[in-house]
């Protein structure tokens, strides 16, 4: 059962064209970047690859998508699926979409309760092995304001969510992908970062961590999205992937077309 999951996730790796060295189930991947850099598009690419049938180049696994800021555009996903399938009939699209589950959460408390209630879902669907959370930083300002003066209370809900997510990922052998929005300028004091400063500078990445420590320590791969400014190349977005434990970096660039992400 466990080895089957490793095999599945490795197939996912090939789809990303050497983006990760190895992606095991139990991995937590964070997509970080400012607005308009292709994070949501990359998620569609990921979902498409997971729900498409094997004949269409997919993995036929089920995906749980937790949407915290009503970002998800179903019609865009359907467009991408139609481009990927050789014969895109209504039936095939419905079959693919049947492997996707969507939840909308309105507050960090609701997110926590939803995670509790989703546990049953994971027991009932063994092929549900990917969880996408877009985005985990959506409640940041509201939580901060509700927490009053104490940082602890401000971060409490997110901390609980992160801890429970870790438990779910561990017990059900999931891979978790979460997006965080880059909402702050890079601070001059960079001792807070868990990735060595020198490595970040080499990769030319602006990163200022602001979510709670429990979440930051849980992440195994952090991928930074940014727009490329050189107009000579046709690729318009670039990603830098940092493995938090092994401290090595891989860079890649991609562009977004009608049919989705193209590397």
């Amino acid at each position, binding site marked *: 059962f466990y080895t089957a999951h490793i095999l599945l996730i490795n197939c996912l790796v090939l789809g990303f064209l050497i983006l990760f060295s190895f992606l095991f189930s139990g991995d937590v991947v964070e997509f970080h970047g400012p607005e308009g850099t292709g994070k949501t598009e990359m998620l569609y690419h990921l979902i498409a690859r997971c729900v498409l049938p094997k004949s269409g180049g997919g993995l036929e696994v089920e995906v749980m998508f937790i949407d915290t800021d009503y970002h998800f555009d179903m019609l865009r996903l359907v467009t991408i699926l139609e481009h990927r399938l050789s014969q895109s009939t209504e039936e095939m699209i419905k079959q693919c979409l049947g492997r996707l589950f969507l939840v909308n959460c309105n507050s960090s408390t609701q997110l926590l309760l939803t995670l509790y*209630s989703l546990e049953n879902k994971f027991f009932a669907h063994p092929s549900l092995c990917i969880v996408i959370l877009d985005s985990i930083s959506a409640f940041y300002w509201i939580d901060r304001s509700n927490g009053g003066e104490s940082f602890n209370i401000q971060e409490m809900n997110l901390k609980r969510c992160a801890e429970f997510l870790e438990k779910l990922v561990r017990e059900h052998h999931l891979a978790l992908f979460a997006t965080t929005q880059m909402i702050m300028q890079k601070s001059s004091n960079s001792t807070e970062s868990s990735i060595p400063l020198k490595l970040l500078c080499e990769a030319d990445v602006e990163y200022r961590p602001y979510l709670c420590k429990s979440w930051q320590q849980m992440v195994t791969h952090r991928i930074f999205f940014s727009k490329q400014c050189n107009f000579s190349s046709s690729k318009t977005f670039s990603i830098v992937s940092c493995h938090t434990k092994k401290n090595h970096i891989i860079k890649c660039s991609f562009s977004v077309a009608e049919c989705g992400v193209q590397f």
Partner: protein
Amino acid sequence: MVILRAGLCPGLTAEMIQLLKANGIVTALYEFFSVPFGDGCLSTQALVAVRRVLLAQFSAFPVNGADLYEELKSSTAILSTGSRSLDRLLDSGLYTGEVTELTGAPGSGKTQVCLSIAVSTSHDLKQNVLYVDSTGGFTASRLLQLAQTRTGDEEEQVSALQRIQVARVFDVYKMLDVLQELRCSVSQQVLSSLGPVKVLVVDSVSAVICPLLGGRQAEGLALMMQLARELKTLARELSMAVVVTNHVTRDGSSGHLKPALGRSWSFVPSTRVLLESREGTWGKASTCRIASLTKSSRWTIA
């Protein structure tokens, strides 16, 4: 931190809370869910029952993608803005379920575009519009003018104007009130003589939010995100097209114009249009305006 109290859900009575406290089970939400079974004299069944009811009442339910697609196919509509070139820019019009933002410097025509969208929706599409005005730029006489260009028949003009509801708000709390009232009236299915609102125009969002930002407090940003959440919820759940307007500021490093309200707001609209006035000959401002798309989930911007 959420504390359980009596009446929070059916089955959670005051006696039960006392019993929980007596058994040393903490009634803060997280701790309640992580307490192991079989402790003390509180029956496991009762605990499980309360947990189940709490989850059923307060957590969100997953929906299958295929079902959601079916629902969206029937409820999503694309509403024309009344101007063919703007429609082309927006990929055939305003999409319901999304927030579209118009940004521009003062005098670039944002209010005019909003008024024209309102009239085109109420007259051409015969749908209801809620126009929330926070700048004082709304004038009914201008609306009448726009309606008169579309039809000469007075009755049609009047019915077009009747479909536009106006709310004047001058601070963010009143704006939140108006939006929540809209949501309540729809969810309680209050039968107004008009029917459901299809387009919500908020002119402008920055006028009520800018005074709150600045300083080191998170209050202002939290209110802004709360407002953003209300707008998006209205758009998605009630299948409305939401149009908001925003100011522009100059980017510190590059000197280009960028929409105001900062990075956190930039994630909220799905589509952003920048309106600029073109400099006519002899440096005078002309009546010509250019609209350019700065963010879209449908077009790829080279």
